[in-house]
């Protein structure tokens, strides 16, 4: 498998569950997450660490606990991404159609 931390972080169902929970339910500590999900606290900490290394979550120390939250990204980036990527696929799919309108010799 690839050594990319983001790929690796998302390839695991438990980590996706944790990420979804943090996105939907807001910031939480490992103890809270372990209480809500069928994962041991030790397991939660290990997976959160992988998510943090991939910069998908950030952590803030609060007393004896560490609170995790999903990494924010600017809204404008998302809108720009949708416009850029949509335009790219429009061109590519036009090229795909062209492949079929000029039949290849068999």
């Amino acid at each position, binding site marked *: 498998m690839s050594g990319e931390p983001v790929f690796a972080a998302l390839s695991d169902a438990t980590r996706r569950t944790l990420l979804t929970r943090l996105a939907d339910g807001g910031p939480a500590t490992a103890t809270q997450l372990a209480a809500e999900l069928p994962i041991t606290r030790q397991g939660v900490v290990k997976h959160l660490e992988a998510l943090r290394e991939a910069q998908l979550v950030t952590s803030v120390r609060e007393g004896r606990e560490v609170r995790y939250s999903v990494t924010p990204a600017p809204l404008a980036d*998302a809108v720009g991404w949708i416009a850029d990527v949509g335009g790219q696929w429009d061109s590519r799919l036009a090229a*795909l159609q062209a492949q079929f309108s000029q039949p290849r010799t068999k």
Partner: protein
Amino acid sequence: MELGKAGQETVVIHSVERDVLVPAGPDEAWQAVADPERLGDWLGGEIELDPVPGGEFHISFEDGEERSGFVEELDPDAHRFAFWWRRPDDELATRVEISLDEAEDGTLVRVLETSPLATLDLVGIPLPSRGTGGPTALALACA
């Protein structure tokens, strides 16, 4: 920052979906996806890939841009190809899924590119609609 309601099953992630009808049966249309040379022709670059789950994927675009990633699935029976790619300076990879649907007068080729990570902060914040290119709510667990 406002986040979605607790207990929600899904998160909003940004995605782009497009489709096009090609005048060919599904098996013939699939060749334009499964054959790296034909795929590269319409994606606009030269492709190298290892067609197994986790196999490397690389494309060199005609304008010099390079993207690499890996194959998630290349399934000739289901006519589905999913891969992840990113530019060398991108922090986040995006997932592309190409799938085929038989239609009355040809085959509908669908493309879905999703960025499951960068928009997690958008949970609960509606994006402006952009027709078929608008954001789609998807379960992250399925991403």
